[in-house]
Each structure stands twice: as structure tokens, then as C-alpha cells.
């Protein structure tokens, strides 16, 4: 196992007698860009949550960005409070310079941190959640459908900002999405999930060219709506 890589073995999840995630092992190298794709209900989010919880329990630095900011922010608490709370949870001292730097990088209005999420645009709320996730310079950042609650223009901008923030770091990402088109442009390796199993694990280009399982070929066949004339 290479230095700094993350490894989980035999991860599985059951809820009320039903197996949501069959035993799964996963190794993620430092700085790797990994995609997890599959139809809805295939167990993608379950794997994302289990992965984060397990690695956290191992003492690794991991962060999770859910689909909607509503699933990440308390509507009754100010952004500044939630920022400070996240710092405290990570054992960090308040650091104004770091806040400035992260907020500038993700285009978050620093002068509005005293407000509550309500009144912020959804896009800026989601960028704030990403900023919170990056606070502890995580080894792995799990992004669960990070843009599907946003308008396309905002979504594209958010992904671009995220790419630029992560460009030189050591943070690995796991991008969870039902949309192979979205994943194909930003990850090096793809995991395909079906019925609680990872059925395919391959380099992005290889998977797009030669999907081996029905689940993967369904995804590649429906990869995007239209191929543009050049």
C-alpha cells in the first residue's frame, strides 16, 4: 500500500434486514480523482456515507458534501457560527486569514457571514458547504451529487471553482453522480454501482470505450443527450 493512500475493507451496510451495500473494499490513492456512478437506488450515497464514517473512525481526515445545502447547514444558525463550529470540531484555532483565503477562492461574500443561510443564494450556500469541507485539508473529499440541486450555469461555475481549489492539493475526491456525462469530464477512475455492489472499477477512458457490465453499458449509452457538431 502506497504512502498516504486510503484503504477500507469489507464495508457493508444493512438496514432493517435489507442489504444496502454488499461487502466492499476500496483503495484510493493520494490526490486521486474517482467517480462513483450508477442509477438511483444503487447504493451510491450509502457507500459514500459509510466510507466517510469508517475513515473518520480510523482517524483519517475526510469530508463530505451532500447534494443540497439543506442537508448540511442549520437554517437557524449564522454562517459564521457554523464556520467556527466546524473549526472547533477539527480542533483548529480561529484563523481569519484562512477564512478570507477560502472564501475568496470559492467566491463567498465574507461580509455576509453574519447572516443565516436563508437569504443566501443556493449556489453560494453550496460553495460555503464546500469551504467547510476543505477547512481541515482533508485527504478525501466525498462529493455526493454536489451540483444537481443547482441551476446548470451555477453548477458549472461551482465545479470549476472546486477544480481550481483542488488543483494543486493532495486531496483525493470521490464524485458520486448518476450522470456519467458529469463524471467523465473530471475523474480518472470510475466505479460503477448496481444493486449495492461495485460491478466495475476501471480507468475512465477504458470504461467509456469498453463497458463490461450491463449497468456500465446502460450508463455509457446514455452518457449525454447530444454529441455536438464541431
Amino acid at each position: 500500500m502506497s504512502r498516504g493512500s486510503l484503504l477500507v475493507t469489507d464495508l457493508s451496510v444493512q438496514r432493517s434486514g435489507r442489504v444496502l451495500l454488499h461487502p466492499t473494499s476500496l483503495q484510493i490513492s493520494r490526490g486521486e480523482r474517482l467517480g462513483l456512478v450508477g442509477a438511483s437506488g444503487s447504493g451510491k450515497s450509502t457507500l459514500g456515507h459509510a466510507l466517510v464514517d469508517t475513515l473518520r473512525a480510523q482517524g483519517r481526515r475526510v469530508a463530505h458534501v451532500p447534494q443540497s445545502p439543506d442537508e448540511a447547514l442549520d437554517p437557524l444558525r449564522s454562517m459564521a457560527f457554523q464556520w467556527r463550529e466546524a473549526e472547533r470540531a477539527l480542533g483548529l484555532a480561529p484563523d481569519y486569514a484562512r477564512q478570507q483565503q477560502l472564501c475568496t477562492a470559492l467566491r463567498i461574500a465574507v461580509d455576509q457571514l453574519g447572516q443565516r443561510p436563508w437569504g443566501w443564494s443556493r449556489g453560494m450556500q453550496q460553495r460555503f458547504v464546500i469551504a467547510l469541507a476543505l477547512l481541515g485539508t482533508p485527504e478525501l473529499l466525498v462529493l455526493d451529487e454536489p451540483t444537481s440541486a443547482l441551476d446548470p450555469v451555477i453548477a458549472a461555475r461551482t465545479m470549476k471553482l472546486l477544480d481550481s481549489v483542488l488543483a494543486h492539493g493532495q486531496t483525493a475526491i470521490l464524485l458520486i453522480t448518476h450522470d456519467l456525462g458529469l463524471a467523465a469530464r473530471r475523474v480518472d477512475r470510475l466505479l460503477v454501482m448496481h444493486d449495492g455492489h461495485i460491478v466495475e472499477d476501471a480507468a475512465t477512458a477504458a470504461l467509456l470505450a469498453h463497458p463490461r457490465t450491463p449497468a456500465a453499458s446502460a450508463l455509457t449509452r446514455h452518457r449525454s443527450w447530444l454529441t455536438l457538431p464541431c
Partner: protein
Amino acid sequence: MLSVDQVTVKRGRVRALDDISLRLPAGQTLAVVGESGAGKSTLIAAVLGLIGLANGRISWDGAPVAHCRPALVMQEPRAAFNPRLSIRQTVLEPVVAARQPLPADRLDYLCDRLELSTELLARRPHEISIGQAQRAGILRALLNAPPLVLFDEPLSALDAVTQKHTAQLIADLQAEHGFAALIVTHDLGYAAAYSEQIAVLRAGRIAELAVTARFVRAPASDYGRTLRAAAVALGALDDSA
């Protein structure tokens, strides 16, 4: 043909729709794209006659739109279904309301086309998947054979594979039955693949109205170009070929 002429809708002092003019010929598809709050849903409400117009006129073949009994397909169909009724009961509601006999095989035929089994129609809304519910919503809309069907974000609750499957089903049924479709969507990829015209809405105004093939090649407006670039960045449109 659906004609929307210089329509303005006011919400308080805000113009939710501002001087909108569109033409949708019978059997064709017009996609309305734009960000949340641009007035897409307001346009649907205006066409259905659910809100008053401050100015302008909306008609189907010269008569008020209501006369042609247009149908609506919504974003989250399960929320629109009565949880106490079976899918079959909900689906047949418009037929009962129209008081016109349904051709004997129409229900069976549409169910078959939409891949809905008789057993599934007996279930309640919470016992079926979102994709099945959306197809049941389409079934309900098409039973009375309306000449105009409005789709409000018909795919956005579905996953990528189901989206494309459902979009193809809608297109096939449209080819068979010849209804005009006005599709509101935030997904430019869907609009690009399945419409004859695209109307880009921004802050209640039409930023661009164009034939789809031309818009996809080269949008004429700045905002149209921004939308196209975003769709490419998100993989909804693929320019790698």
C-alpha cells in the same frame, strides 16, 4: 398552433413575464430553458389560464387554450397523485371529468407503450418508483388525446439513464399521436436533443428564440452562450466527438 402574443404577467410590481411572444405549431416541440426564477413555470401557468395576463393574448388555433383541453405533466408526479387512490383511479380522473367515452383499447395501448403493467396500476403512489410514477403521469396526460401537452421539468426527478429512456418515450408517443409539446426544462442537453425550437428565458424576458439546431451550433445571445458552455462543462452536451 399555440400562439403566445406579447404576454406580460405581473407579480406585484415585478414583471414575471415581460412581453413574451412564441409560436408552437401542432405536433412540434418547443423547449423553454433558463435558470430558476426566470419565469418558466409562470409561462406554463399563463398558458393553462391559471393566472391573469397584464397584457397580451394566448390562444390555440384562434380560440382560448382551455377549449383544446391541454394536459400537464409535472416534475414530481408522486406529489401530484392522491396517496389514497390507486394509480389507475388517479390516471382515469381526467377521463371521468371529460365525460367522453374512452376508446376501448386506448388505456391498454398507452400502458403497453409506457411499460406500465395492469398490476402496477392497482398500486398506490408510494408503492411505485419515481420513473414509473412519471410514466403514469404521462399516461394520465395523454389518455384524452389532447392536442397540446405541457411538461414542467418532466425529467429532473429522474436519474440519468431513466431520463433518457423517458425522453425517448415522450418523443415516440408524440410522433404517433401528433400532440404539440411545450417542455420547460433547465437541462439544455434534453432541449437540444428533442425540440424544434428553443426559447431562452431570463428574468421574464426572452433572451433568445431560435431553431434548436442553430442554437446548438452557435447561440446568438451572450446568455445563450453561457448556458451552452455550462451544459458542455456538466457533460449534458458532449463536444468531444
